[in-house]
């Protein structure tokens, strides 16, 4: 009989990952007792070629027409096995996977009996389900050959250039008035000590001039709708109060502005005007008026100052809608704010600064033109100390547990730079352990201690206070290698602050329906095999937005993300799972209860027939409407009522546990 349900069950050992705990033979024998099961087999690695061939052969021989594989998580290999079965003509939606690794053997490693019981139950749940499944066809949708990149730091810029060079349109949305990100604030970069601006600014110019890159600086993503291949994005172009079309970037307005405000770019170490560009090489070079400090005196708007009449105090924000097929999130990080670590008295004492502030002091276009001085009196410090792991690797509540991965290296970099300028300076670095893991990093560390004579002291500081006479900093701690208490008077203390997720990352996660990991950074789909994909198809992540990393890693990841997006766009179409809901016209009473449940506006209403209708292009397949319908007239493909109830009945038959 052609319609007879014949299920093939395959139990995977996954080497010892499953078979080391679970009695796979028992599971296989158990499978043979289940309804509709035609055959059951076990094999070392079902995902290997040989494992997949087992399944293919049985299908080709006509022995089975539905398949259950008991193995790892379906989130790992469901696509693999779906391809396997469809390659020999079986409908891929007649396949089901029982998770006996992540949800059984790996969480019950010391309870083989319990794990085996779970494995049998998970298996029979899927066997019961697969018997009820219906063949489905995937939907094929077109992919718009354009990409949205959120964040114009080194990661976002690299991804933008890679995609644009391949011919795709790129919308690069940057919330600040300039692109460049934190790399623009750095002076030199470890381990090669190339000047940050020298390698960054040409890229910024390339981005601005590329015909395929639509740079939207001083803009934010307001709304995202749609799905892989077809996102509609609303971008808010914040008003700069300076017309970019008319402005010639002559700088007269800045020159004449009478108001000053702290410059965010220099972390409060210098001032800027109310009309400003963050730093000389900013791209785009059009000034922005900061309306919070502007007094609207009208000087800059005067024709004698701004000849092209580009200043417009009445300018409004603009909302722009764009269509893209893929999205890359490259929103980067914020340096950790050490204010809450009271023991380091960052806010209290002038001569305690952060690593990022030191970066600005060392920069030739920074507030001191590259000659670091003490904020208290403007003199060059002679004795300096760096304190590592500020805000990182700390298990106190509210602190970050992770290693920020850049602070050891940047502290050594800054110390070396200072030594180059002041060879007789005395420099200490207080550390927990030095993490110099990248290419050329260990060598960099070696040179710092051997050739530069920087003193490395293993130990955290316990206390920091100011010497009343000259505002020097007295630090107390322990040298844990020598096991002696240590007290030092230094002219300046630099807190090597780590990096943390942006405060608006929750908002971004919600807009894009992507996830964050415990550390607050965006979560990748798989830590090893899919490190730049998010769990939402068509959305990728790059740079520090995904987790702490240095520039080489941020760039590498950006190239990966660009490649992921390009693959999708080059193919031009993508298959999506047909998990949309369908309405049974005969059962629908026309109550419209479902309509209010759908966040995507996918449910319409046929007034004439008095029934709900579903626009499958808009339906994302959550099934909430199906759960709501009082008449059970709506069902969600692949998650239909009888299919789900079969799982429950299947596992609880005979009272559950064996």
């Amino acid at each position: 009989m052609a319609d007879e349900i014949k299920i093939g069950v395959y139990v995977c050992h996954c080497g010892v990952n499953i078979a080391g705990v679970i009695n796979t033979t028992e599971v296989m024998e158990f499978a043979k007792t289940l309804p509709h099961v035609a055959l059951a087999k076990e094999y070392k690695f079902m995902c290997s070629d040989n494992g997949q061939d087992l399944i293919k052969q049985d299908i080709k021989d006509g022995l089975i027409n539905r398949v259950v594989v008991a193995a790892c998580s379906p989130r790992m290999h469901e696509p693999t096995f779906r391809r396997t079965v469809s390659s020999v003509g079986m409908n891929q939606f007649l396949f089901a996977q029982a998770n006996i690794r992540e949800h059984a053997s790996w969480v019950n490693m010391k309870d083989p009996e319990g794990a085996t019981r779970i494995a049998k139950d998970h298996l029979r749940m899927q066997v019961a389900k697969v018997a009820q499944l219906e063949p489905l066809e995937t939907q094929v949708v077109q992919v718009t050959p354009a990409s949205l990149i959120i964040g114009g730091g080194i990661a976002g810029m690299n991804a933008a250039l890679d995609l644009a060079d391949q011919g795709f349109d790129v919308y690069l949305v940057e919330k600040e008035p300039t692109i460049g990100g934190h790399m623009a604030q750095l002076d030199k970069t470890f381990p090669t000590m190339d000047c940050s601006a020298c390698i960054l600014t040409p890229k910024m110019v390339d981005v601005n001039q590329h015909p395929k890159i639509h740079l939207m600086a001083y803009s934010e993503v307001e709304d995202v709708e749609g799905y892989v291949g077809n996102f509609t994005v609303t971008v808010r172009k914040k008003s700069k109060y300076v017309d970019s079309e008319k402005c010639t970037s002559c700088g007269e307005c800045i020159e004449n502005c009478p108001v000053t405000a702290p410059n965010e770019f220099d972390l409060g170490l210098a001032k800027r005007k109310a009309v400003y560009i963050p730093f000389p090489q900013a791209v785009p070079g059009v000034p922005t008026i900061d309306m919070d400090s502007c007094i609207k005196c009208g000087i800059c708007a005067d024709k004698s100052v701004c000849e092209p009449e580009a200043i417009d105090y009445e300018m409004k924000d603009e909302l722009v809608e764009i269509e893209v097929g893929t999205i890359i999130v490259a929103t980067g990080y914020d340096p950790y704010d050490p204010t809450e670590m009271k023991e380091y008295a960052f806010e209290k004492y002038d001569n305690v600064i952060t690593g990022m502030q030191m970066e600005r002091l060392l920069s030739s276009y920074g507030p001191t033109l590259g000659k670091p001085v003490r904020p208290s009196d403007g003199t060059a410090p002679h004795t300096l100390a760096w304190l590592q792991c500020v805000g990182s690797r700390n298990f106190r509540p509210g602190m970050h547990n992770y290693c920020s991965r850049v602070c050891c290296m940047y502290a050594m970099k800054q110390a070396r730079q200072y030594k180059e300028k002041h060879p007789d300076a005395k420099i200490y670095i207080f550390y927990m352990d030095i993490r110099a893991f990248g290419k050329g990093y260990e060598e960099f560390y070696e040179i710092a201690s051997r050739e530069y004579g920087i003193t490395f002291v293993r130990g955290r500081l316990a206390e920091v206070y100011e010497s009343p006479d000259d505002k020097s900093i007295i630090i107390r701690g322990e040298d844990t290698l020598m096991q002696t208490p240590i007290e030092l008077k230094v002219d300046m203390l630099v807190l090597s602050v780590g990096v943390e997720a942006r405060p608006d990352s929750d908002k971004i996660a919600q807009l894009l329906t992507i996830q964050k990991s415990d550390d607050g950074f965006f979560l990748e789909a798989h830590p090893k095999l899919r490190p730049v994909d998010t769990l939402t198809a068509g959305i990728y992540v790059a740079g520090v937005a995904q987790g702490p990393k240095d520039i080489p890693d941020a760039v590498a990841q950006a190239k990966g993300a660009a490649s992921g997006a390009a693959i999708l766009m080059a193919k031009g179409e993508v298959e999506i799972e047909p998990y949309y809901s369908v309405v049974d016209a005969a059962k629908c009473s026309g109550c419209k209860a479902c309509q209010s449940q759908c966040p995507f506006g996918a449910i319409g209403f046929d007034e004439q027939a008095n029934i709900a209708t579903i626009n499958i292009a808009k339906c994302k397949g959550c099934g909430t409407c199906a759960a709501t319908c009082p008449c059970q007239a709506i069902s969600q493909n692949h998650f239909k009522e009888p299919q789900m109830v079969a799982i429950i009945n299947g596992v609880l038959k005979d009272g559950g546990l064996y």
Partner: protein
Amino acid sequence: MAKTDEKTEGNYKPKPLEKWEPFILGIFCNWCTYAGADQAGTSRMQRPANLRVMRVMCSGRVEPQWVMEALKQGADGVLISGCHIGDCHYVEGNFKTARRMPLLIKMLEQLGIHKDRVKFQFVSASEGAELTEIVDEFVADLKKIGPGPFNKKFKK
């Protein structure tokens, strides 16, 4: 690893469970809790062997009838779990279920079913540790309450 000489040939004979252990049916959304449960596995976080997991795309899909069906068929507890509010892959499916579940629990209570038998919890894709804790607690709670009212094998 199962040794060859231990292999049971031919018909399988189930070994009955001697002592009652709470049977918990978990209904997890694909994007957060199921992923979180995978993460618990990848990180080898150990938990008692009382949880069976069923996957839906979104916790919004969970029908109150399923919970009743599971209890009627003898489950001792049901754990429904999805993304945190604001994190739902489909914007607000979890919100719908978060509103539905308290009503269901109230109704079950009127039918004489202990309110602690049905739990609704938010677990994100990175909260394997939280999930493990939730299961630990749930098992302990159920052990206090005893077998479900419709558990065919083990009576209270």
